[in-house]
């Protein structure tokens, strides 16, 4: 899919995505020539179509975790998977989880929780974020296109 600024006859570029958590999806595109921005608003069905294909509008910015589709789409057994932290991660500075963010993480089904925790921790580390708060989680979810996390 390409977005064209008709006035400038210039292809618009992907700007940012938003995942509000209500099953819908939004992405904005901007014209590099005149700066005009537009928003593409996808309804639940359109969002689900993209999720079922396991692709990301605006491109994938994150390395896919093993069995990401299954873990985010299936109600699985709580103790089915044992996520092992990456080798050498013990020495790395990891962001601290605020009480509110831990509470929110605890509401994520156990089947997928280990993976979700790793994704947010990696996101924080890559950006030098020292504390993971619900706001950081929201930002990460939108930036990374993580519906259902």
């Amino acid at each position, binding site marked *: 899919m390409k977005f064209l600024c008709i006035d400038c006859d210039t292809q618009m570029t992907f700007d940012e995505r938003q995942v509000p958590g209500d099953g819908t999806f939004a992405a904005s595109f901007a014209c590099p020539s005149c700066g005009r921005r537009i928003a593409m608003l996808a309804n639940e069905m359109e969002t689900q179509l993209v999720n079922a294909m396991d692709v990301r509008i605006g491109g994938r910015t994150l390395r896919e975790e093993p069995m990401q589709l*299954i873990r985010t789409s*299936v109600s699985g057994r709580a103790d089915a*998977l044992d996520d092992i932290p990456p080798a050498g991660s013990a020495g790395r500075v990891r962001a601290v989880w605020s009480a509110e963010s831990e509470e929110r993480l605890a509401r994520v089904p156990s089947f997928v929780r280990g993976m979700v925790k790793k994704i947010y921790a990696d996101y924080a580390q890559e950006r030098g974020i020292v504390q993971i708060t619900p706001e950081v989680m929201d930002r990460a979810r939108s930036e990374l296109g993580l519906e259902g996390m």
Partner: protein
Amino acid sequence: MDAGTRGVERVSFRTYHEVEGRDSSGLGEQVAAQRARVTNRLRTVARTVAVMSGKGGVGKSYIASALALGMAARMRGGVGLLDADLNSPTASRLLGARGPLRVDADGVHPAVAQGDVKVMSMELLLDEGQPVTWRQPSGERFVWRGLLETGALRELLGDVAWQSLDVLVVDLAPGGDRLSDLFELVPQLTGALVVTIPSEESRVSVERSIRTAQALGVPLLGIVENMSGYACDTCGGTRPLFDGRAGAALAEAFGIPLLGSVPFHPVNDQRPQLELPASVVDAVTASLMITQPTQVPSS
């Protein structure tokens, strides 16, 4: 309301292919990358064999599991079994595979079952007796199920740390279309083994799946006829269990070898519960070794 209806002049603009810039989402590239993950993962797997049947209830999972076990005793390079029957998985239980499954940077590690067979199955991910429930809006699940199931099969192939294997046995759900899904993901598939029972109903149903395999160009290793009579422990004889001779009839009709017939055995403490006659394992193994994998056109 379009421009004409609104009484304003129509604007002209370039179409998709006239705009030279790259698609910013690159959905095609993302899907290609998903396929590449499967291809890369299976580079260390020498042969991939599908065990299929057009008909359910023929004991396909039993044959696939017992075959994996029998092959593991004959091959030093390792044997894996992927239970691709997502909605009715049983192979991991038959082989005694247990979780939890370790997840690290290399992927999800398969369970190691009896005979050192590496096993991956949805059964290892679900609560006891729970069906596969997709967390999608109810009322629309039928729309997404096919996409999700194909995506799940892709992850079970490509996200599992199979490592080096001589053979990966893929136990397919009943139905010819399942082979199509697998073949799209694994075009280098070595071949398919067909399982039937003797009945005429099975012959007709399995014939369809054989035709599907032929249409796809998947090499057919041969046919195994399961429940081919009832083996009586008392008299030592084998008595008929079903009317029909589907295995032989299909072999004749399609020019495919009948690799063996497996009688139904009653429970007996003196005999392993998961075992195929050695002649059947040998015949399937030999067929697998001489079959040239499907040639993947270089892109």
